């Protein structure tokens, strides 16, 4: 039942991806209700899956790498649904759906859904730490998406090669503003996640701490450079993409380290 919900959710995101690709091939890129509805439906099914899994486990479904990735995909969709309409970034859906689809598709395909064998008592602080940190990753993912959109738009403006997608992308200044806000949202949530990690009452693994702090320092540096006007918007956009790629790799590392000590 739970896995079927996830497969249906992945199909919803896949539908949005197909729609985007077909529109681009026709040269008539039109974001809109379809993408938003597909992502919203995918999100509802993700939520249902996580809820079913959580009830079955009796705890927050973050017990293995598979659940971590599904939770991350859910966070990305959540932040998109909150941020997209507010900043009129409907096109963000066209960039978000492939990311979410890829995360879920790979999670479903690879044998990482190993059953949780630990019978330790539920630690609320640990669950709060993990879930807030992953929602922060969702915001970083959307900042990365906004960064990609910025780079696409900027390239078209620089090279004078105007394609159909140009007319649907938001103005550069709007994308830069959205990027900055998403970075702040992600950074604040991530900071809360790190702080709550100290309240878990469990011994702090050195490698995990080092990885988590390096991600924090990376985003802190980007934000500081942006506000001190040391970085051009294009560099901020490129760094958003780089930082999320690095953070995602490090998340994999954190979760790998945690395999012996489930969250």
């Amino acid at each position, binding site marked *: 039942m739970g896995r079927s919900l996830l497969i249906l959710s992945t199909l919803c995101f896949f539908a949005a991806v197909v729609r985007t690709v077909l529109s681009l091939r026709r*040269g*008539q890129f039109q974001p809109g209700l379809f993408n938003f509805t597909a992502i919203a439906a995918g999100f509802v099914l993700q939520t249902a899956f996580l809820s079913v899994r959580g009830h079955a486990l009796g705890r927050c479904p973050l017990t293995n790498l598979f659940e971590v990735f599904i939770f991350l995909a859910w966070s990305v969709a959540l932040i998109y649904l909150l941020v997209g309409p507010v900043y009129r970034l409907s096109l963000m859906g066209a960039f978000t759906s492939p990311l979410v689809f890829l995360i879920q598709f790979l999670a479903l395909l690879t044998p990482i859904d190993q059953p949780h064998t630990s019978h330790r008592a539920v630690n609320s602080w640990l669950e709060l730490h993990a879930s807030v940190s992953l929602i922060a990753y969702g915001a970083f993912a959307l900042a990365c998406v906004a960064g990609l959109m910025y780079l696409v*738009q900027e390239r078209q*403006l*620089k090279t*004078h090669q*105007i394609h*159909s997608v*140009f*007319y649907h*992308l*938001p*103005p*550069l*200044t*709007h994308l*830069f503003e959205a990027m900055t806000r998403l970075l702040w949202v992600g950074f604040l949530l991530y900071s809360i996640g790190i702080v709550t990690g100290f309240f878990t009452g469990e011994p702090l693994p050195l490698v995990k701490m080092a990885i988590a702090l390096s991600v924090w320092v990376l985003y802190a540096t980007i934000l500081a450079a*942006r506000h001190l*006007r*040391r*970085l*051009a*918007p*294009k560099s901020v956009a490129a760094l958003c993409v780089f930082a999320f790629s690095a953070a995602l790799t490090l998340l994999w590392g954190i979760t790998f380290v945690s395999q012996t000590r489930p969250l």
Partner: protein
Amino acid sequence: MNLYCIGLSHHTASVETRERYARLEGWRNLREASGCEEALLLSTCNRVELYAAAAHALSPESIGCCLSSEARERVDLEAAAIYQHAGDDCVQHLFRVVSGLDSMVVGETEILGQTKRAYEEGRSTGGAGPYLHRLFQRAFRVAKQVRTHTQITRGAVSVGSVAVDLAQKIFGELNGRRVLLLGAGETGERTARALVSRGVRDLRISNRSEERAAQLAAIVGGRAVDFSRWQEECREVDILIASTSATAPLLDPARLAPLLRDRVDQPLFIIDMAVPRNVTPEVNEMSGVYLYDMDSLQVIAAQSLALRRQQIAAAEEIIAEHVSDFREWLRQGMKRGARASAPDLSRETLPAPEL
């Protein structure tokens, strides 16, 4: 009911001919003059067309008399300029016109507003009855559908509007943006005016002739800036329009770099309207600077026009569906008319126009 369209447009008549017909008076009695139950006139700078509905078949020539009565002596000479459409052709023609397919600039949307005004005038003067009402309301729906489902209106097709579109793609809203017009060339002035019409409030004009700068500033609502200070102004402005007659470039990376040092997160859009160019192409390589010259603007305008033309087939499909649908409605209307001694057209109510 028989539908007719008689008229002339930029496709068939010179601007002088169109002007003469557009100035004709006596349109108030269109119904009587044309001998039709319903008649209304669509008169724009590019076309003068009479749309009419008659219960009995009439020769288009007899309807056309009202169009030509005021200029009878010229009609023979201009007979070739006047076209006639009847039945489905008339319906299709109107749908094409309102959708912008028959316009000089394919996909322009001004014609929709002009047609709505013409319809409203016909309605208020009693010229438009139930058939023309239905025809025009359907035409407005068709235009909306064509705009929504095709890219016929996509992109700007003139150099000035391309520049304004690009500015909006960089900055979004333009109302808080600062613009410097360097030189008082005609194209530059037109672009500056277009930017002002899109919300720019801070327009600075710098020209070698201070008098000309002040004169232009007074006309377009900007302020004149001393020509010796224009480089300093570049530190503040978001958009620079260069249109001087200088024979050597006024701006290159070496001169621009120090001016941009304190505005790393503030893009600068440079529109070089001058020939020869006022800004060296290398400036476009600078971070945060977007340089467009006449050639690049014209290429984008041509791309947009080509894209619009590609959409014509898709638009024609939509129109064909609506023509067929309207034909069916008209046939049903005639059946109803045949059953009754006289067509009960009064049952067709005229709702407020969709203006």
